[in-house]
C-alpha cells in the first residue's frame, strides 16, 4: 500500500489506518465525532496527500484545460482556483477537481486519489492538439488541509499568510489555496513530500486537531459536497449531480453537446435526504415515495452537527417531498431537502 510522508506521525498519534484507493490513510485519530466538532468549532488538520497533482503548462495550457473541463479556464486569473468537472464524451463526470492558475501558462489540477491515473491518461489522450504539456507530480507532492473557524489564524501564525476563498499564494515551494472539503474557512497546503512533516507538526503544535477521512466525510456530507466514486460513478452528468453551476456554457468543452441536450429534459437530480426520526441511513438504502421505490442513497450518515440522519440520492422529486428510507428493514420518515443540511 502507498504511504504518505506523515505515515509515521499518524501511527505515533494512534490513528486507525485503512486502505483508501490504495493508500494507507488515517480514518480517525481520537474519534470521528470529536474531530468533526473540532473542525466546526476551532481547527482541524487532514493529511490529504493521497490526492493527485497534475501540472499543465505551455502557451495553450489554458485553452487545453477549457476544452477538458466544464469551466472556461482561459478566464481564470493567476492566483485563483476553480472547482470544475472533467467529463467524458457523453457528458458523464469522470472526476471533479480544482484547477489552480499558478501563472497564465501554468496550471495545477488536483484530482481524487482513485481517479488520478485515469485523469492523467484522459488528459494525455486529449493534449496532442494543444501546445501544452502535462506532468504528473502526485508522487512528489503532499497535501495538508487546515480547516475550521480558527484555521486562518493558525495559517497566519505558522506562515504569516492569508488566503481568500479560492485564491492561492505561493511561499517557497508551498502552494497554499483557500480551498477545502468541510465548508469551513481554511486552506489546503500543497508541498514537497520532504517538507510535509514539519508543517504538519507545527500545525498540531499550534493546537489544530489531527483529523481522519471519517470526519472529512461527515463534514463534506453535511454541506452537500460530492464524493467522487460515491455520489458520482461515471454514469451521471453535472446537471444530474445538481452542479449546473460548474458549467461555463459559453465555451466548447468535452461533453457539452450531451449536456445541452439534457438541459430542460426530465432527469433525476442529486438531492438531500433528511430523516425525521431516529436512525442512521447508509449508502445503498432504498428510498420510497407513495409506496414505490424511487432511488437509493449514494451517501448517508448521522450528521454529527445536527444529530439527524442525512444522505444524498438521485431523485425525480422536488425538495419538500415526504419520502421514507428503508434502514435495516424499517421504513423511516424523511424529507427531500436542498443541501447544505440544516
Amino acid at each position, binding site marked *: 500500500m502507498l504511504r504518505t510522508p506523515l505515515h509515521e506521525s499518524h501511527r505515533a498519534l494512534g490513528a*486507525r489506518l485503512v486502505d483508501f484507493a490504495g493508500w494507507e490513510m488515517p*480514518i*480517525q485519530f481520537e*474519534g*470521528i*465525532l*470529536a474531530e468533526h466538532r473540532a473542525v466546526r468549532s476551532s481547527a482541524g488538520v487532514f493529511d490529504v496527500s493521497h490526492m493527485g497533482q497534475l501540472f499543465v503548462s505551455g502557451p495553450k495550457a489554458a485553452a487545453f484545460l477549457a476544452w477538458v473541463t466544464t469551466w472556461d479556464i482561459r478566464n481564470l486569473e493567476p492566483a485563483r482556483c476553480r472547482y470544475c468537472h472533467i467529463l467524458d464524451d457523453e457528458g458523464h463526470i469522470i472526476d471533479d477537481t480544482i484547477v489552480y492558475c499558478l501563472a497564465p501558462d501554468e496550471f495545477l489540477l488536483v484530482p481524487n486519489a482513485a481517479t488520478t491515473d485515469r485523469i492523467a491518461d484522459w488528459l494525455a489522450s486529449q493534449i496532442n492538439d494543444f501546445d501544452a504539456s502535462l506532468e504528473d507530480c502526485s508522487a512528489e507532492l503532499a497535501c495538508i488541509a487546515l480547516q475550521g473557524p480558527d484555521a486562518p489564524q493558525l495559517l497566519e501564525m505558522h506562515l504569516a499568510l492569508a488566503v481568500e476563498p479560492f485564491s492561492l499564494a505561493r511561499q517557497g515551494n508551498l502552494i497554499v489555496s483557500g480551498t477545502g472539503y468541510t465548508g469551513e474557512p481554511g486552506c489546503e497546503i500543497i508541498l514537497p513530500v520532504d517538507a510535509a512533516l514539519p508543517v504538519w507538526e507545527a500545525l498540531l503544535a499550534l493546537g489544530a486537531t489531527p483529523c481522519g477521512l*471519517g470526519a472529512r466525510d*461527515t463534514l463534506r456530507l453535511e454541506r452537500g459536497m460530492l464524493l467522487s466514486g460515491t455520489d458520482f460513478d461515471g454514469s451521471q452528468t453535472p446537471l444530474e449531480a445538481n452542479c449546473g453551476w460548474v458549467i461555463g456554457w459559453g465555451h466548447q468543452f468535452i461533453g457539452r453537446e450531451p449536456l445541452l441536450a439534457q438541459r430542460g429534459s426530465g432527469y433525476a437530480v442529486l438531492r438531500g435526504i433528511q430523516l425525521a426520526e*431516529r*436512525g*442512521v441511513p*447508509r449508502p445503498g438504502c432504498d428510498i420510497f415515495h407513495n409506496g414505490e421505490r424511487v432511488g437509493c442513497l449514494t451517501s448517508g*450518515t*448521522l450528521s*454529527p452537527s445536527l444529530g439527524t440522519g442525512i444522505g444524498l440520492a438521485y431523485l425525480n422529486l422536488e425538495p419538500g417531498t415526504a419520502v421514507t428510507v428503508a434502514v*435495516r428493514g424499517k421504513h423511516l420518515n424523511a424529507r427531500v431537502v436542498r443541501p447544505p443540511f440544516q
Partner: protein
Amino acid sequence: MSEIPEELLYAESHEWLRQRDDGSCLLGISDHAQQALSDVVFVELPAVGDTFGAGDSVAVAESVKAASDIYAPVAGEITEVNQQLEEAPELLNESPYELGWIVAFKPAVTPQGLLNAAAYRKAIA
C-alpha cells in the same frame, strides 16, 4: 488496554453477560468492542417481551461508519431495555459495563459455553 471485569461472562462476539440474583441477565458490549466500534451514535433496541434464540441479534449499535449487531448468547425473553441509550448512545463508549448496559432478559436455559474474564482476555489478545 481494555478493561475486562472479573465477575462477568463474555461471548466471543464481544458481548458481556451479568447474571443477577433473580435469575435474569444483563447484556452489554465489552470495552474492547466499544473501542473497536468507536463513537456509537445510535442504538436500536428491542421491545420488552420480545423473545429470541441463542445467537440472534437483539440490538444494533451504530457508529458513524458502521452498524454492528449485538447477539444474545442464549435464548430468552427481553424484560428491560436501557432507554437512556436512546438519548445517550455514547454511554456504550463511556461506560460499557455499567450505564451502557443494553437489555435485561430472562434466559430460557442456563447460559453455557461463555468465556470467563481470563479466557476472554486471551481471546482478544
